[in-house]
Each structure stands twice: as structure tokens, then as C-alpha cells.
């Protein structure tokens, strides 16, 4: 190692005097940290969601039901049959104008087998229209609801459906019903708003088209379309209420946030509804026992019936055959009461069979910004370490000094040693500053700072080792930088930094475990986020050390061989 100190001092001067190098190696990682840190500072904000509520009272305005009818012509005949007045139109404009003027109550738009489309309208009694809506909602597949004729038309033209029925909003049955939950009455809009508090920031849209436009432009992260009759279906036991959710999946993180938020909200609604329905059923069952209002009918309770039967039995005590029959009634009443009590207890238990309690292994619930810190630190170390190791070493070639140095008394490891020390110092100090910044300035969580620093120190070895190995394959700084970028990017994606390892195919996991950064990330997130102790991460640290020593050894050997 003779001469390492002079070389170290020389390298430091060269880094400080080279603005680009200074920027790339020292300032750039902090910039990244600052930008990402600032971005994640804000996470946990409500997801902007557009709401198209078709389940609301609409005096004016139309409602369009689209779907795969199977036989457009058949539905056309059905309408004709049920109508008081039936008109076939030559064009869409004509049909819509008539609809707007109130000349017809319903419009049917069907795709013709020849590829064109056909419009017809009908004056039709409300009850008949309702019946028809019921029929087609049962018969059509892939139902979609739209607030405007334009949307229905384009859906038909895109081949998503082969028929569309337009009617005045108010003619749709079961519209804008309310549901009783937790002592309050909710319509669809209020349900969404109240149950999605903190998670979603809801803006109202009159049509899906407008909402989708804003989704595309990035103003919204998701669009929720509530179909007409949603609350009505929610209330009935036989039917399943559906909502349509459109998410912008072009950005995975954004999509993840939106989907999680919406799923969470919907499951909360489902839970409440199921609970409420169970409560109603249980209450109903109790009414059978105690008597009272049983879903709208006054009934006499089984207990009272039992008491009455007992009085009868006492009164007919002298007629044993009658008393025996009455006794049967009493027994039945008693059994049923006991069964109802059992059933009610069972139902109450089934309403919410699982009580979910989510806590973090860190012992404190973590925000997105906490979770991102270890990856960020590890990635920036990889970046700086590889570049630093490679550039410092290749500079010797680029400056043509390797030849001269080899002739001096410099020790065989002085060159590699001085690079390792300087690069190590830069990388480690960078991780120290990053960690402290993350914790102090951004309020990120780190359960053990000491262990985190130990991990980063060991990580630095591997990163610089990779850099030295790359340095053996380049003769100029530009080449070294290109190589570093080529190598670092795949490494980043092959570790668990971007996608969770558990979601990767087996061979990717095998590859990931041949990369030191994977262990660095696991150890770092272990000691920072999972509250792991030194004993827990010891083996990972040992692997990191092993990688570090091996890579540095390889790098040093390759670099020395290259200079021969």
C-alpha cells in the first residue's frame, strides 16, 4: 500500500477540481434524494377520483342502458309490441330531436347485422317501460350505463354492445333510493363521500366521457361510475350491486394507490351493508319471538303464542287428548324460540367473520416515504459507488499515468487501495448524510440508525467493487460511465428495489440473490423498517461483506492485469 496517501490526496484534488465529477459523484445523489423525498413527503394525500353518479334523481336528462342483447331485432319488436306509439327514424338526429321534444318516452338504438344502426322511438306507459327495463337488465350481457346519447352511440359503434335503450332518467325504476346505515340514510353520492373520507377526493361529473377525459389528462387518478339502481341492488338480498371503476394504469404507483383506495372504500361499504342486512334479519327473527313489526306486518310473538297455548292447556287440563295436542304446540314454540336464538347468535357472528387488525412489523405504522428511504439510499450508493470506483480508476488510464505509476516504488495495492478509500469515504458519507436528512428533514422512520450505517458501510464495498471490475473494461472515463449505466440500471431492476421479489418468477429471484444490492436492500429495510436486530441481519451483512471482498479482489486483479 506504499504511496496510497499521496494517491488519495491526488484523487481528492482531481474530484474537487472537476466540476462534472463533483456533480455526478457528490451532488447528484442528494438532488435525487431531495426530489424524491419531496415527492413522497406528500403521499397519503387523498386520491383524486371522478364520480359519475347515475343513481340519482334526474328530472331532466336521459339515461342510456347498453349491452349485448343477442338479438337487436327481437328487442326492437318487443318495444314495438309494448308501445302505444312506435316510430322508426331515418337518422339519429331526428330520433334524438323527437326524444328531446318529449314526443317519445324511450329510444331504442340497435346495430343492424349489415353494420349500420337503426333508431326507433316509442310512447310507452311507465309500468310497461319499467318492466321492459327489468327484462333487458336480466337478458342483456355486459351492461353499461351512460348519461348521454353520444356515449351510448360510440359504445355501439366501438362494438362494445349491440343495443342501447335511452329513456328519461326519471322513468328508470329504483332510482336514487337510500339505504339506512349506522343510523343514517345514505344515497349513492353521500355513501361514496362519507365512506371514502381521507382516501379519495371526489369530484362530480355529469358523464363518463367528461370524467375519462380528465383521467387521461392526469387530473384524476380514477373514475367511478355508479350505475342507476345501485342502492336498490345494495339493499336487496338477491342482487349484487356493481360499480365500474376506471384506473389510469400507465403509472403503476398511481394505479396502485387508486386501486387500494377504492377497494378499501368498497369493502368498508360492503361490510357495513352486510352488517346492516344481518342486523335486520336478526332483528326480524327476534320480532318472531317477541312480536311486533315484522318487515311491515304486525305479528304476535312466539313467546306470547306459547303463553297463550299454556293458558289453553291449563284450561283444557280435564281433556287430556286436547291438552296433549296443545302441549305439542307449546313444545314447538319453545324449540323455535331456542333455535331462533341460536340462529341469531350464529348470524351475528357471520356478519363479520374476520376481524382484521393490520399493524406494521416496525411497531409503528409506516408511510410511503418511510418505505422508500432504504431503497433510495441503497440505489444512490450503487450509483455513486460504481461510478466512483470506475471513474477514479479509469482516470489513471485516461491521463496516461498508469505507465508512469507502475515504474515507481508504489506498492501493488496502493492504487486500488487509494481508490477504495476515497470512493468508500464518498459513498459512505453520502449514505450517512442521506439517512440523517431522511430522518431529520423528512421525518422518515429508522428503527436503528447504527445498524443502518453498518449496512451502508458494507454495501459501499460491493458497489465500489463493481466499479473497479468495470474499470478493467474501459480505457476512458466516457466508456466507464456508459458501462456503469449499462450495469447499474439492470441491477436496480433485478433487485427488489422496484418490484417486490416475492412477485418475481423463480429465476429472477435466483438472479436477484446473486446481486449484493439485494442483500443490502433487505438488510437496510430490515434494520430501518422491520426493527430487526444485528443478529437478524448478521447473515445478510456477512454475505454483503463476502460480495464486497470478492468484487474488490476481482476488480483489483482485473485492473492490475489490464495494466500489464
Amino acid at each position, binding site marked *: 500500500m506504499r*504511496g496510497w496517501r*499521496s494517491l488519495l490526496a*491526488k484523487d481528492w484534488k482531481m474530484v474537487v477540481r472537476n466540476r462534472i465529477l463533483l456533480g455526478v459523484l457528490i451532488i447528484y445523489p442528494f438532488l435525487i434524494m431531495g426530489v424524491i423525498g419531496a415527492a413522497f413527503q406528500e403521499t397519503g394525500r387523498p386520491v383524486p377520483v371522478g364520480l359519475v353518479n347515475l343513481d340519482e334523481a334526474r328530472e331532466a336528462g336521459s339515461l342510456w342502458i347498453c349491452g349485448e342483447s343477442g338479438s337487436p331485432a327481437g328487442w326492437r319488436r318487443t318495444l314495438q309490441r309494448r308501445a302505444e306509439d312506435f316510430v322508426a327514424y331515418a337518422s339519429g338526429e331526428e330520433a334524438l330531436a323527437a326524444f328531446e321534444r318529449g314526443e317519445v318516452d324511450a329510444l331504442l338504438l340497435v346495430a343492424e347485422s349489415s353494420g349500420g344502426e337503426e333508431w326507433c322511438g316509442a310512447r310507452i306507459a311507465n309500468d310497461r317501460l319499467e318492466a321492459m327495463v327489468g327484462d333487458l337488465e336480466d337478458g342483456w350481457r355486459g351492461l353499461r350505463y351512460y348519461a348521454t346519447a353520444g356515449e351510448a352511440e360510440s359504445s355501439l359503434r366501438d362494438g362494445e354492445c349491440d343495443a342501447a335503450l335511452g329513456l328519461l332518467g326519471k322513468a328508470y325504476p329504483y332510482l336514487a333510493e337510500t339505504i339506512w346505515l349506522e343510523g343514517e340514510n345514505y344515497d349513492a353520492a353521500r355513501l361514496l363521500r362519507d365512506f371514502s373520507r381521507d382516501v379519495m377526493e371526489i369530484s362530480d361529473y355529469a358523464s363518463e366521457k367528461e370524467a375519462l377525459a380528465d383521467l387521461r389528462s392526469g387530473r384524476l387518478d380514477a373514475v367511478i361510475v355508479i350505475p342507476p339502481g345501485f342502492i336498490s341492488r345494495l339493499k336487496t338480498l338477491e342482487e349484487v350491486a356493481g360499480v365500474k371503476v376506471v384506473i389510469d394504469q400507465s403509472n403503476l404507483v398511481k394505479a396502485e394507490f387508486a386501486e387500494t383506495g377504492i377497494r378499501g372504500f368498497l369493502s368498508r361499504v360492503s361490510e357495513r351493508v352486510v352488517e346492516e342486512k344481518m342486523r335486520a334479519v336478526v332483528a326480524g327473527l327476534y320480532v318472531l319471538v317477541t312480536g311486533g313489526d315484522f318487515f311491515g306486518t304486525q305479528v304476535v310473538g312466539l313467546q306470547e303464542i306459547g303463553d297463550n297455548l299454556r293458558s289453553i292447556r291449563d284450561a283444557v287440563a280435564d281433556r287430556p287428548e286436547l291438552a296433549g295436542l296443545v302441549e305439542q304446540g307449546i313444545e314447538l314454540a319453545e324449540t323455535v324460540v331456542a333455535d331462533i336464538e341460536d340462529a341469531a347468535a350464529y348470524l351475528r357472528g357471520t356478519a363479520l367473520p374476520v376481524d382484521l387488525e393490520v399493524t406494521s412489523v416496525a411497531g409503528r405504522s409506516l408511510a410511503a416515504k418511510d418505505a422508500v428511504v432504504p431503497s433510495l439510499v441503497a440505489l444512490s450508493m450503487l450509483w455513486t459507488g460504481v461510478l466512483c470506483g470506475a471513474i477514479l480508476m479509469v482516470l489513471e488510464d485516461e*491521463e496516461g*499515468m498508469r*505507465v*508512469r505509476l507502475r515504474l*515507481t*516504488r508504489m506498492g501493488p495495492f496502493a492504487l486500488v487501495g487509494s481508490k477504495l478509500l476515497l470512493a468508500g469515504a464518498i459513498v459512505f458519507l453520502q449514505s450517512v448524510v442521506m439517512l440523517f436528512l431522511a430522518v431529520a428533514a423528512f421525518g422518515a422512520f429508522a428503527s436503528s440508525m447504527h445498524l443502518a450505517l453498518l449496512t451502508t458501510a458494507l454495501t459501499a464495498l460491493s458497489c465500489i467493487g463493481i466499479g473497479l471490475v468495470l474499470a478493467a473494461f474501459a480505457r476512458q472515463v466516457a466508456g466507464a460511465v456508459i458501462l456503469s449505466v449499462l450495469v447499474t440500471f439492470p441491477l436496480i431492476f433485478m433487485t427488489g428495489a422496484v418490484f417486490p421479489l416475492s412477485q418475481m418468477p423463480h429465476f429472477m429471484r435466483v438472479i436477484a440473490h446473486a446481486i449484493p444490492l439485494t442483500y443490502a436492500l433487505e438488510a437496510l429495510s430490515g434494520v430501518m423498517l422491520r426493527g430487526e436486530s444485528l443478529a437478524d441481519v448478521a447473515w445478510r451483512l456477512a454475505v454483503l461483506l463476502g460480495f464486497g471482498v470478492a468484487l474488490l479482489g476481482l476488480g483489483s486483479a482485473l485492473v492490475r492485469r489490464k495494466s*500489464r
Partner: protein
Amino acid sequence: MVERKDVTKGNVDEGNGAVISARGLGKEFNGIWALKGVDLSLERGETLGVIGPNGAGKTTLIRVLTGQISPSSGEIHCEGKVVDPARLGFRMRIGLVPQEASFYGRLTARENLALLARLYGLAGEEAAARTDELLQWSGLLEHSRRQVRFFSRGMQQRLSLAMGLVHRPEIVFLDEPTSGLDPEARSAVWELILRLQEEGRTVFMTTHNMEEADHICTRLAILVKGEIREQGTPQRIKSLLGTDRVELRLSEERQGELEELCSSLGIYWKKEGEAYVLTGVDLPEKLPAIISRLAVGLRDMHYREVTLEDAFLRFMREVEG
């Protein structure tokens, strides 16, 4: 040609008193021999210049002799004994000025020299003193605080020279020390090399510049395609390879006579436009005979002393043709 080979042989056989001598040195790169059986010796105190076209193997020869790469065949002797030039003992005796720029551009001249001084094992004060000495020697003292990348090529080359001398080596290898320099900078470097000779150092240098070879080197070797083709003093090389030349013009009717005469006297001639150019080893002795025979009809005549450049170019034409 036979005579020339003898000259080469003779020099090597005397190589026992040489500081460094190469015996059958060869170097192969991926199946291509950049050096083929090079026999060459470097005598103490001389300045040996190796001249040869691009790709001849000059740099490779220096790299082998300074232990940067090991030879594929042959051996290197130092004072009669086989030596591994990569060994520290040998390394301390030699200094190297590589062909390519080699210094830290973002360090100052002083910092560059001081770093090497430290790496050559000089202690703090000693290193500083040696650095000052070399700055003085290379005339860079007043620029010693500027980053070297802002230096002119000439200044950089002077620094490069100084950097090869930090440990006072007795043998200095200079690989094309003046290539790419303007005449002024070139003569400044020559100045320094001549001073090295005065100090009694042995210099091994390569060059493309024949003026330089003639002016600086005490002995020359011509390297072509990895082989030493000629060796000797510049004077000897000139006389071996080329000769003085005479350019003359004469009336047309005498031209046939001239050509006949030249053939009979063994004088090489060719026609360049109107003029005849005559060359030959012993031209000076034969010239009077020609002049007396052709005095009538001789219009004009120029006599030009041969330059090493002429000799080299002619030699190369011979080698290639």
C-alpha cells in the same frame, strides 16, 4: 546489402559492455509479431535513436525494455546479465517519457512532480527540493501553480520529460519526445535532451524526425516492421543509405552520353522533368570525370549534401519496393 547486415551483426557482438542489450527480442500481439528478433544494445552515455515508420514497433520496443509488457521471445541483458525489467532494482535505474500525454491534467506541474517524487520514495522535504529542481530544469518554475491541462503542448512535453527524471535515472527512455511540437518548442526539448547527455545519462529515444535524429542522437537504429534493419552513427546511416546528389541539366544531344557514362561508372540516375538527378555512394570522386566529359552542353548543376531524411525515405522505398 551483405555489407549492411555485417554492420548490424558487428554492433550486437560488441554489446557486452552495454548497459542494456536486447537479444532476439520478439513480441506477439494476437498472432502478429510487433517485434521480431530484435538485437540491439545501448552503450553507457550514448543517445540511441530508433527511427522507423508508424507501427514499426518503436513503442512496443520501449514497453518491453521498460518492463511494461513481457517479451514473447528473447531476453534483456543489463550489464551482461539477464534481467527482468519489471524488477524494482532495474526500474529505479530507468526513467520513461511515454509517447502519449501522461500527467494529471487537473494537477499543477508542481503537484504532478511532487506526487511522483513521493511515489519514488522521496521524503517530504527531499521531494519538494527535487520538484523545485526539476521545475527549474524544465523552465516551468513560473508556471508551477497552473493546472497542467492549461499548458501549451511544449510546456506539457517539458513537464513530461521532467516527470521521467524525478528519481535521477541513469537511463532515460523517450518515446517520440518532440512529435506534435512547433519548431520553437521542439528545440526547447532538444535543449533538455542535450543537457541529459551532458549530465552523462544514457538516452534511448524514438523519433520520426530525421533532423532530430541527426542532431541529437549519437547512434541510430532503423526499425521496420519489428526488425532492426540498420544501425550506426547518423553519418554512417546517411552514407550507407543515401548519398549526396547532383542535379544537372544539359543539352539534349548529350543526354544519351550521360546515361551511358553513369551506367559505366555505377552512378544511379533518374530524370526529373528536364533535370537529371544523379546519386551514388562515391559521387564526389566520380563527379569530376563526368563534368570533364560533358562540359560542353552542361547548362547548370547543383550539388546537394544528403540529409538523413533523404536517406531514410530512400531506404524505406527500397524496403517496400
